[in-house]
């Protein structure tokens, strides 16, 4: 095998063009060139933690406040999904639960798992971990559904005293949580997985060579 780093080259992660090691920025697309993103894992963890800190209030405080003639009702994310399910719309309730609870939680676990396994320095099953990363990148945006629902309803349901809907503070913290976890996943340099990859039958991984000086 021959990676760009082993060949004294550096790959542009934006356009895939290859340059001699030490080239500061890609001559084709202008992206900064780094053999491995310095501080990739620190960025991943910083965004991960910020996302998690936003996710906690997002589940405690109301997402949506519905005021009608007779009552005012505040629903959290999970409460809102339960409410939908009680109306018999199981499929829609499932969409909300998957998008707002299962995907974010699974994403926190998956990113942490990838970061920790790279930090340990030895990765078994790099293909599986690469797939996991691709899934995390693909599904992250779908968590935004509930935020959009809140924005839509708050603009639409403004029927004077008959009924009105207002966003709760969880709408903001949840949106921030989704954005920070997307940034966390995007900060992850997948080349680190392959550097630490231990091929089948090999017990000890050679330490990856130190990155080229820039």
């Amino acid at each position, binding site marked *: 095998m021959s990676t760009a780093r082993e060949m004294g080259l550096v790959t542009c992660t934006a356009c895939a063009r290859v340059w001699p090691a030490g080239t500061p920025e890609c001559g*084709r697309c202008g992206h900064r060139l780094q053999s491995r993103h310095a501080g990739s894992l620190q960025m991943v963890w910083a965004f991960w933690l910020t996302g998690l800190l936003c996710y906690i209030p997002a589940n405690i405080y109301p997402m949506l406040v519905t005021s009608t003639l007779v009552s005012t009702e505040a629903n959290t994310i999970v409460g809102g999904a339960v409410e939908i399910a009680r109306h018999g719309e199981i499929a829609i309730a499932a969409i909300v639960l998957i998008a707002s609870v299962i995907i974010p939680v699974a994403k926190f676990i998956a990113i942490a798992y990838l970061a920790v396994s790279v930090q340990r320095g030895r990765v078994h099953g790099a293909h599986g971990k690469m797939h996991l990363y691709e899934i995390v990148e693909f599904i992250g945006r779908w968590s935004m559904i509930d935020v959009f629902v809140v924005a839509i309803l708050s603009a639409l349901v403004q029927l004077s005293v008959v009924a009105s809907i207002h966003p709760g*503070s969880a709408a*903001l913290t949840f949106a921030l949580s989704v954005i920070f976890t997307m940034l966390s996943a995007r900060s992850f340099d997948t080349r680190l997985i392959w550097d630490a990859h231990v091929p089948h039958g090999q017990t000890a991984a050679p330490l990856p060579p130190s990155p080229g000086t820039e």
Partner: protein
Amino acid sequence: MTAQTERTGAGKGLSGMDTAALIGCPNCDEVYVARTPPARRRAVCDRCGTVLISSRRNAGIPILALSVAVLVLVLAAAFHPFLSINAAGLGNRVSLLDVATSFRSGVLVLVSVATVMLIVALPALRVALLIYVIAPLEMGLRPARHARLAFRAAQELKPWSMTEVFSIGCAVALVKVSDLARLEFGSAFWMFVALSVIVVISDRFMCSWSIWQAIDAAEGDATASAREPG
């Protein structure tokens, strides 16, 4: 999963090798000699499975047409109502511009700003950048000014344009207040459904490596070699 690229030998002398002929896998760092795959085939990284080149001949025209369609639909959808509500003789219909201006209370304004950014502004900006980059190439002209920066920005914006997520959001909203009021989809909702489908098709056509190659080719060899650092 046959790689249509040729693995480069690690032992090959690099001194004389032109790195422009190589392609690196952005996901695992493996380097190959870039070779355009035959029609209907894609060049896939042997090591990690990332699609490196998915070139289709003359993909520029379809991407251009689809991008124009998306741009028109996004802008039209922003001004048309996407949902309307009726309850107890009262009615309301909202467009995305209403969403943008609906929250006036404190920090929650950020939610409506973010919504409009992710659903209208960034998708529109992304396809506008693609049109700006690809149109001159298709017309055989020199690349537009800052075409490289524009194309890189368009690629960066991809995960942040969420029109299809919004379509599902409309459907959920419809169900969520079904006991409170009667909701109906407006014309903009169907525009969003259509443009979500078009975006998916258009992204399937697009091969970023081929577009970069086209930009390089259009700028001419003289300029290209002048850009070679070191």
